[in-house]
């Protein structure tokens, strides 16, 4: 169970298997909005089933209707009724991997990032390249107004054996980019003392595709790690795939290098 106030979202891992390409999305529901967790979850789930179509205004309009129907409007308090009229907002990053071609594509609105790590170096960070380019007011997808025109970013790239894709919500992405010289993702690959194995998957589907393209290489996986912002005494509710991630997040937040924000990390190793 995720904490109630965790407003990042990701494509449910069970939804990833069985589709022709591997699709995974992360989203960050805006703190200022209400029901942004629900909106972020709808966006990431839809990306799992429909891919990049989720960025179209038509699909967003459908999702907005679903979002609205999911709220029990009659029973909302006066303040949630007011907040509801303002709509909800989230950033979204979707990544589609075609291992048969050895390629990946990404689309993003906002500041969730995907970084391609090759030979120990970040060779591409999308859609934001530098720590200083993160702001408190990213572009967001809204339930009322969809995606602001011209604000969807797109990326296409090739994958090699041994490449690592790092997907991270904004605070964590900014921290990784600021510390890229120390290769912080290496720590996250350490599985020792794993707290919760349910979020680590070696997908059969991924294996099938992988074996076809890279038959001699067996070290592939998808890992997911989550940490909600620490506001209340709910540390025990945090979900991490391992204590290494937990300890890094806690330490870096304490010294002020990592913003205290919901954090989602997904590592896809090829």
């Amino acid at each position: 169970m995720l904490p109630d106030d965790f407003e990042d979202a990701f494509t449910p891992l069970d939804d990833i298997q069985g589709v022709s390409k591997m699709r995974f999305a992360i989203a960050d529901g805006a703190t200022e909005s209400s029901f942004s967790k629900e909106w972020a979850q709808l966006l990431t789930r839809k990306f799992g089933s429909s891919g990049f179509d989720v960025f179209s205004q038509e699909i967003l309009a459908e999702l907005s209707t679903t979002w609205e129907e999911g709220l029990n409007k009659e029973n909302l308090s006066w303040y949630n009724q007011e907040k509801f009229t303002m709509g909800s907002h989230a950033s979204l990053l979707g990544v589609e991997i075609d291992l048969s071609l050895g390629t990946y594509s990404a689309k993003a609105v906002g500041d969730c990032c995907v970084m391609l790590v090759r030979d120990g170096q970040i060779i591409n960070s999308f859609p934001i390249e530098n720590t200083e380019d993160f702001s408190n007011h990213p572009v967001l997808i809204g339930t009322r107004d969809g995606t602001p025109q011209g604000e969807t970013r797109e990326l296409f790239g090739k994958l090699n054996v041994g490449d690592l894709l790092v997907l991270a919500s904004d605070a964590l992405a900014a921290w990784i980019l600021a510390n890229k010289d120390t290769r912080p993702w290496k720590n996250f690959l350490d599985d020792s003392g794993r707290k919760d194995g349910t979020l680590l998957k070696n997908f059969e589907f991924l294996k099938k595709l992988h074996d076809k393209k890279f038959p001699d290489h067996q070290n592939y996986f998808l890992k997911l790690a989550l940490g909600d912002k620490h506001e209340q005494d709910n540390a025990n509710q945090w979900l991490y795939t391992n204590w290494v991630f937990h300890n890094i997040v806690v330490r870096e937040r304490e010294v002020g290098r990592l913003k205290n924000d919901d954090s989602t990390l997904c590592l896809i190793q090829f």
Partner: protein
Amino acid sequence: MSYTAEISRNNPGCFLFVIDQSGSMADSLASGKSKANMVADSVNRILQSLVIRCSKSEGIRDYFFAGIIGYGQGGGVVSAFEGSLSGKELVPISEIAQNPLEILEKEISVDDGSGGTTNQRVKFPIWLNPIADQQTPMREAFGLANKIVTNWLNQNHNCFPPIVIHITDGESTDGDPSQEMKALMSQTSADGNVLLFNVHLSSGGHTNVISFPGNQEGLPDDYAKMLFSNSSALIPNMIGIAKEDHGINLSAGARGFVFNGDLSSLVTALDIGTRASNPR
């Protein structure tokens, strides 16, 4: 660096409104509304806005505590909250959200997004009623403000510094409030000094509004200069909001001070004063 503390449920922010409720607040401004009405409306809207900022699908997150000191009513200084909140000094925003005195509903005309207008029903919760009664014990009011802020800081030392917004239309009748105002501004959290805004409302004949001055030039009298001296310099976030959302270009050194203010300058000051500290 000061004024950068993160506002969270573990480390909430604090707003204290100090409201003149003396007899002269019954006077009307150009709009025909009394000053007491105008202040009550504006403070109610600001509380509503704070509640909505903190409202999430699972409920209200207590990012802020707020209090209202009223002075003049019955000649004394009291918490201006009524009903369930009566007598309370600083109240978590969730408790404020759940205890308005009443919720008015009005139909207003809004932009329909295609060049026309459409009617929309909106809610106006009321916490503060307009009151205009007796004297202006401003010094005593700031004595209470100091006490409330001291208690708050004792328990919330790492907080974003409390923001105190004082709204008045006249001079103190219980002595010079300067020392109490200075004492208030000298109180600190680990993140900086308390920020004090003084919003002085016009008394009929005056029409020349002075907003956020950076020096005493052009201030008409000693009273205006006293309020200026006891108003905090705006922090960079506030100067940014003034520019981005209100189109006001302010230089560093501009103070949280309005003299001969009207409704518009009061609303602007309240907005700039309460939006610079953002919860994560």
